[in-house]
């Protein structure tokens, strides 16, 4: 499949990104509201406690024997009570906080994964698995760590800022003028730095995705690499990507780290200005020294949260660039939706027709041109030809993994574009050369295609498929878990399990793409009757090299260089003495 050049997507505007992210947080609104309320209560309690301890200290009196001990004890008891309440609030707050953040990361992962399943097969043909994994693990974790954990802190900081601002305005409104200069300066600085670091964080996410893609690919090919003793070269290649990723990450972090000290500097300058102007106000007899001193105290409580807001904004940049990658996946075009009036394919007789089909994986390179055929219910269509002639493409089209550019494919006379994909695909059973098993028990793997299958049924098909004896000798029989490492299970055995899986299905149409290519002849012969039974009464599309197996086909398509050169029955094609006949005779050259 030709790799389609990714069309450079225009980045969505920031505001849209924020609102999309916010929706994930907001979907837990009751939790968020409760958490913020608890936080507010806690902050008020935090304000009250110093007041109470102040009162307690007042009650101690100034000298020996002056203490009002009962009052001190009462106040301390109240403080202890308040602290315990605060502890409870903190604890509940933490639970809420974690719940929100785990729900957000859960929903992001769920949405990305569900989206993946709706994407066309071509998406996966063109992407590193590791890069996809990077979105689901690294990017989602980053959003969780820096977005969710910061949002509540932001709320409490805003509250702090507001309270301090009110207090200051009450004491010396004139001095607030200083903030009219420095606060906008802080905001401008924070905005500037966030903008400045954004591309660096974006580069960080991207290079990490690339590195993870490479890592996954190389670990999956570890056996081949070892067989050729190429570990050193691969390690060297990894070093290049590793360095790139570390460099990008370092650049982003170093720039992000400017935010805190920079904001701190502006704050300290504010303090300086306040002191200077406060002093001058005092000289002008416009303010009392005590007022200036109190104002300074509050301005510290006002500026500190502003600095932390800046810090958080810097930290959020990594969340935003990670979420861009998440939304990029979510915005991928899905398999074109079923037509609004799409029908569910039921009671299939199994007549499949193609009319003037033209198709290419890319617009400029046609793989199939003007192909027409008609397969009667229960007939056998064989597709033969040299490797690379585009045989698998026909299957991609039948199953609607790809859609043809021109022409019409119909099942029982219904155009497949007017049917729901699900029902169309369920009409077929497919056994592919590349077997696919997942980490689960043998039973689960065989029963995968059909709901509510019993162990007895599974055993039966496994017997017919000639794999029962093997399974029986596994440590836990049908409950043995098939693991990725592949200890013990051969490719041929895997293929037989997928054949057994197919045997459980009762779809009216069957696709066999080199279905027995990894099974040895002896075993193949043993399961031949089973295969025949599998094909019986179904419309079959078979790709095979062993021409003997398809000689009785009702229709043979001979593909060459991506187009159908000849079609007809064996006899017709032999009589033609063309490509098929040549292919056929070539088998005896090695007898």
């Amino acid at each position, binding site marked *: 499949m030709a790799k389609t050049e990714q069309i450079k997507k225009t980045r969505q505007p920031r505001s849209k990104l924020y609102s999309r992210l916010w929706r994930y947080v907001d979907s837990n609104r009751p939790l968020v509201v409760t958490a913020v309320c608890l936080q507010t209560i806690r902050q008020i309690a935090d304000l009250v406690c110093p007041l109470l301890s102040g009162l307690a200290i007042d009650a101690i009196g100034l000298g*020996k024997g002056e203490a009002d001990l009962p009052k001190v004890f009462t106040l301390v008891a109240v403080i202890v009570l308040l602290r315990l309440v605060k502890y409870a609030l903190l604890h509940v707050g933490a639970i809420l906080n974690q719940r929100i953040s785990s729900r957000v990361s859960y929903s992001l992962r769920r949405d990305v994964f569900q989206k993946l399943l709706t994407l066309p097969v071509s998406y996966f043909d063109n992407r590193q698995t590791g890069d996809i994994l990077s979105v689901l693990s*690294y990017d989602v974790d980053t959003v969780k760590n820096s977005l969710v954990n910061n949002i509540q802190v932001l709320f409490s900081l805003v509250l702090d800022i507001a309270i301090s601002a009110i207090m200051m305005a009450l004491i010396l409104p004139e001095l607030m003028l200083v903030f009219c200069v420095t606060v906008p300066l802080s905001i401008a600085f924070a905005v500037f730095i966030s903008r400045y670091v954004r591309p660096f964080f974006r580069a960080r996410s991207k290079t990490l995705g690339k590195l*993870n893609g490479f890592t996954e690919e190389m670990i999956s090919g570890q056996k081949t690499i070892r067989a050729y003793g190429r570990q050193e070269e691969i390690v060297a290649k990894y070093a290049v990507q590793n360095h790139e990723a570390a460099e990008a990450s370092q650049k982003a972090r170093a720039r992000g780290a400017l935010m805190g000290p920079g904001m701190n500097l502006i704050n300290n*300058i504010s303090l300086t200005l306040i002191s200077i102007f406060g002093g001058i106000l005092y000289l002008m007899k416009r303010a009392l*020294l005590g007022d200036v001193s109190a104002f300074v105290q509050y301005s510290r409580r006002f500026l500190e949260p502003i600095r932390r807001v800046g810090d958080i904004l810097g930290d959020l940049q990594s969340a935003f660039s990670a979420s861009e990658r998440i939304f990029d996946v979510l915005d991928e075009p899905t398999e074109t939706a079923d037509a609004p009036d799409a029908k569910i394919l039921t009671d299939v007789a199994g007549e499949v027709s193609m009319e003037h089909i033209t198709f290419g994986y890319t617009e400029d390179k046609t793989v199939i041109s003007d192909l027409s055929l008609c397969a009667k219910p229960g007939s056998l269509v064989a597709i033969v030809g040299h490797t690379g002639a585009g045989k698998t493409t026909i299957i991609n089209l039948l199953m609607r993994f790809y859609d043809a550019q021109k022409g019409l494919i119909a099942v029982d006379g219904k155009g497949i574009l007017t049917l729901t994909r699900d029902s169309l695909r369920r009409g077929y059973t497919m056994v592919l050369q590349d077997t696919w098993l997942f980490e689960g028990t043998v039973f689960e793997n065989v029963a*995968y295609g059909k709901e509510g299958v019993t162990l007895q049924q599974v055993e039966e098909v496994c017997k017919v498929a000639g794999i029962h004896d093997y399974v029986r000798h596994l440590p836990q029989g049908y409950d043995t878990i098939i693991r990725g*490492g592949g200890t013990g299970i051969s490719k041929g055995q895997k293929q037989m399990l997928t054949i057994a899986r197919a045997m459980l299905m009762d779809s009216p149409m069957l696709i066999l793409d080199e279905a027995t290519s990894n099974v040895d*002849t*002896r075993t193949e012969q043993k399961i031949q009757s089973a295969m025949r039974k599998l094909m019986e009464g179904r419309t079959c599309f078979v790709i095979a090299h062993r021409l003997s197996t398809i000689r009785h086909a009702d229709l043979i398509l001979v593909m060459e260089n991506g187009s159908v050169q000849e079609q007809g029955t064996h006899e017709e094609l032999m009589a033609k003495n063309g490509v098929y006949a040549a292919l056929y005779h070539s088998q005896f050259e090695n007898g």
Partner: protein
Amino acid sequence: MKHTLKYLKPYMGFFFVILLAKLTAAVLELMIPSALGDILDIAAPSGSVSLIVRYGLKMAIFALCTATLNMSSNITSSHFIHKAVERLRQDLFQKVSTLSSAQLDDVTEASAVTRLTSDTYNITQMLIGCMTMGIRTPILMVGGIIVALQEDVMLTLVLFLAVPMVTLVAIHGNRIAVPKFRARQAASDHMVRTVQENVTGIRVIKALSKTEHEKKRFDAVNADLAEKTMDASLVSSKKSNTNILILNLMQALMILVGALRVNAGLMTAGKIVAFMSYFTMITNAALNIANILMMVSNGTASAQRMAEIFEKPQDLQVQDIPQDENPCALEFRNVRFSYLGQADNLENLSFRLEKGQTLGIIGATGSGKTTLVNLLLRFYDVDEGAIFIHGQDIRSIEDGALREKFGVAMQSDFLVADTTQNNIDFYRHLPKENLLEAAKIAQAEEFIREKEGGMDYPLAIKGANLSGGQKQRLLIARAVASKPEILILDDSSSALDYRTDASLRRALSENLHDTTKIIVAQRVSSIANADLILVLEDGKVIGQGKHQDLLHSCEEYAHIARIQMEAVGEEVAHCG
């Protein structure tokens, strides 16, 4: 953890400088309020505007110095941390690439991937957290305690009562948290594996309309991951909240003790006020330390997972085994092997091959053909017996030297997103003529020429833009490109049609006379001309010899041959 910290060692000098810079910055920052106090206490009462401005300037300069020091130390520490992490990740990758197949099976591929990605990320987070907050906070804490000590010894003792409790909670919390974070990472492995399976099986899943089922399956994994993440984080936050409570209660206790002492005339009330403010400072610092500890728990869990890999012993070591007498190109002698230590996957296997000879292996699915290849390549070590190449036990041959002898095309199709040429070369830097010749031998020349760019034609990820047969031919080209001493083709022509397969065999025998060839096949025709044929069944040799002999001596072989010949014969008759 120790292992991870080792990576910071080379930068210790720099970290010391950073520490000094941070310390200076902290002290300067503490001096800003004192300058501020001077404005209000000295300059303002003096009535001199210029004095106020002078003190103001002093403050501004301190502020500027603090900012500069902090910024530069942040940038520097980030630089060194990333260097350290880069090296750590590099070493981990290197170690993973030297793991034996058995070891990797044990770790699982998915987990190896998360250890290289998610775990290194956790460690970066931990180190950054420690550098940015981990220096300043303890300084503030220690500073606070020192000043507090000067105010009143008795009250400081109350404070010291808190220290062991807080420490105990922190250590205990860490002990619980680390396994929880480990469980979290294990859940992450599971998530990765599920996604991997879905990506590779997307066609089957779609074909069987199992997307709903897969959604549910992922949902369970995803929910488990979310749950475990929450679990781990909660242990951490519980720990830090408990510490805040302890400190807060200590503060209340302090008021009580203070009240009694003031009442007894042992101290002044003013001291309590001062003490309280230091205490707030210490509490804040303790809070920050709790945050850092959470990252440390997370990082420790990840560091342990990495250490597990680093600590794996070098498997399949080169052993000192004397040269065997009576050498030949390749010999298996009484080899026995089992993957899981249970039923034998190969038993009592023996054969000898001379240089340039061809060994054909045929047998039913699961009979041990690929296992034989795995042993010859030393992916696994034999349980009993030995394998010799020119009389040298393969366990005594250094890894690199052993690999150089082989050219292998396996069933698994590992092609990378690179040019056709580089896929054949596979990073061996072979001369281009060799590659072209290899393509010719592997019958790949024609289709490569037809591709746009020929040898420079870029392969898609996993070779997705090639057909099964084209992939196989590229893999064969790769195997023959180095003119190896031993060529192994493990069922690697199954997707080729008969004609191509026949041409391939002809080209192999014409061009690689000196190469000892091992061909695992399902077609008798593919191995009929071999010098020695092994017929395997359930890990045992049930027939051994040449084609003609086996037709008589081995019933199974004769049977396979008959089925295949019949098929062809039938066709001949039909054609006739």
